């Protein structure tokens, strides 16, 4: 596992490359795209475990933080969807170089899935396979859900929430600041805005009847993308502060993702 920084000097991104195990090396690589904010914190360990497992199975893996998130340069307010879409393309180039031209699968969870799909619309030939886990198709609804999670997190953390925190500012989501630009992009993230997304092939993972996933499936199929849908229901809360009563690394989720990234590769 090699931590490093990449990208332009004024907006360096943090990445971790998990090289493919030499004994099992395949011509396959996986680029993992984080969700946003607290959801990214929550999935960090899960992606780390997934990356380790894939690397043992001979897959090069790159995990990275978008600009203004995690260990990457930039403040919270420097991050926005268009920039993060370009970060995916930049990370793809980096992984392409490090994996010596392996076919790359993009794997995104939640907002990371949406960002990966937007990046695929920009450059549909780059990913060999697009795996989207509960992609978000409704920005305003997501903002509302984050506001609700924020209120819930404060109640959980304080017990009695101080009066100064009774009102949640609109630019604040569970400890992360949202720029005006990002807020605007969320407001414009609607099913209609996803028209034109395409890829060589796509796998969508979500609980049955997930509306956002259906929107992505329709948009992808409209462009001729072969789409496989996988029903997967889990019990963990994407935005919880800690794992609480759910697994920090849901084994079944890691196994499912690994199977779809490299079929029949279970080290």
């Amino acid at each position: 596992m090699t931590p490093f920084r990449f990208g332009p000097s004024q907006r360096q991104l943090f990445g971790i490359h998990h090289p493919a195990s030499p004994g099992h090396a395949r011509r396959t690589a996986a680029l993992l795209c984080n969700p946003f904010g607290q959801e990214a914190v929550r999935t960090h360990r899960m992606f780390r475990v997934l990356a380790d497992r894939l690397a043992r199975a001979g897959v090069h893996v790159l995990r990275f933080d978008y600009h203004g998130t995690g260990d990457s340069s930039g403040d919270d307010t420097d991050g926005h969807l268009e920039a993060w879409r370009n970060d995916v393309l930049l990370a793809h180039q980096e992984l392409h170089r490090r994996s010596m031209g392996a076919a790359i699968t993009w794997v995104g969870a939640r907002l990371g899935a949406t960002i990966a799909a937007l990046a695929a619309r920009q450059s549909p030939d780059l990913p060999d396979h697009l795996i989207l886990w509960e992609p978000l198709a409704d920005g305003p609804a997501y903002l509302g859900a984050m506001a609700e999670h924020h209120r819930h997190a404060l109640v959980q953390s304080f017990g009695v929430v101080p009066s100064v925190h009774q009102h949640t500012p609109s630019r604040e989501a569970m400890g992360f600041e949202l720029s005006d630009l990002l807020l605007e992009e969320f407001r414009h993230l609607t099913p209609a805005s996803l028209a034109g997304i395409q890829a060589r092939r796509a796998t969508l993972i979500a609980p049955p009847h997930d509306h956002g996933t259906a929107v992505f499936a329709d948009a992808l199929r409209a462009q001729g993308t072969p789409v496989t849908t996988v029903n997967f229901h889990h019990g963990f809360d994407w935005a919880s502060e800690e794992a609480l009563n759910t697994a920090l690394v849901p084994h079944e989720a890691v196994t499912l993702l690994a199977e779809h990234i490299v079929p029949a590769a279970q080290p």
Partner: protein
Amino acid sequence: MNEIPVTFGAERHLIGTLALPEGNPPARTAFVLLNAGVVHRIGPHRINVKLARHLAGLGFASLRFDLSGQGDSRVPVSTLDFAQQAVADIRAAMDHLARTADVHRFVIAGICSGADNGWNTAQADPRVVGLCMLDGYAYPTPKTRWMRYRLRARGPILSAVLPWLRRKWAALRTPKEDMVQAEGGRTPPSREAYARTMQSLVDRGVEVCVVYTGSMLSVYNYAEQYREAFAGHGFATRVRSEYQPNIDHTVTPLSAQQRLLGLVGDWARTFA
């Protein structure tokens, strides 16, 4: 400011980010920023990143990193238990800072379990000259219990009663020997042992800042509590104690983050 990903430790199993101030050499004291619970080195709501950058602006180098088996760090081949391994890891972080930034005095800052790990390391390594513990071990006084009910009574009645009911229900269902685990695996030293240790640290010249948040309401809930809990001990007036009811345990609201950065930054000037 420069941020450099680093791999270090006897087995190169630890991963972190070294933050160095721009331009001039860093101050002679550097900060080590620790994991809080299961959150990786960026800290809850990225607070360690924000703190590292704030400290860099004040001229301090820092290293935020994942302890063995947490975040991105691997589990080493070792026979140490978790607490001992954490101390070994933090000492390795100080070794790395000494080698790469030529800094040989250290402040350790941590939240919750991070505070406990800093506490243990300060006792084991004389290079530690400062300790900042957010929601570290807390020792209630009789006034704490009275304040607890008074403060809860001010809030909505459900908020006041639910946490108490939840704890009572959990306690009924949990065997007594498991209670320490149920509390997150923290085993606080006795009040006497804490006082002895803190006195020895302060006598050694270690600067200490303890911050208690509004999430600690049941065990810490008024500004003078620390001094009253340890009245008669010399260290009680030398330790900087802060009760911050508008900050929560994971520093969620942005205003709480700003308050904490200001508070730690202000205290950090002691080491400039």
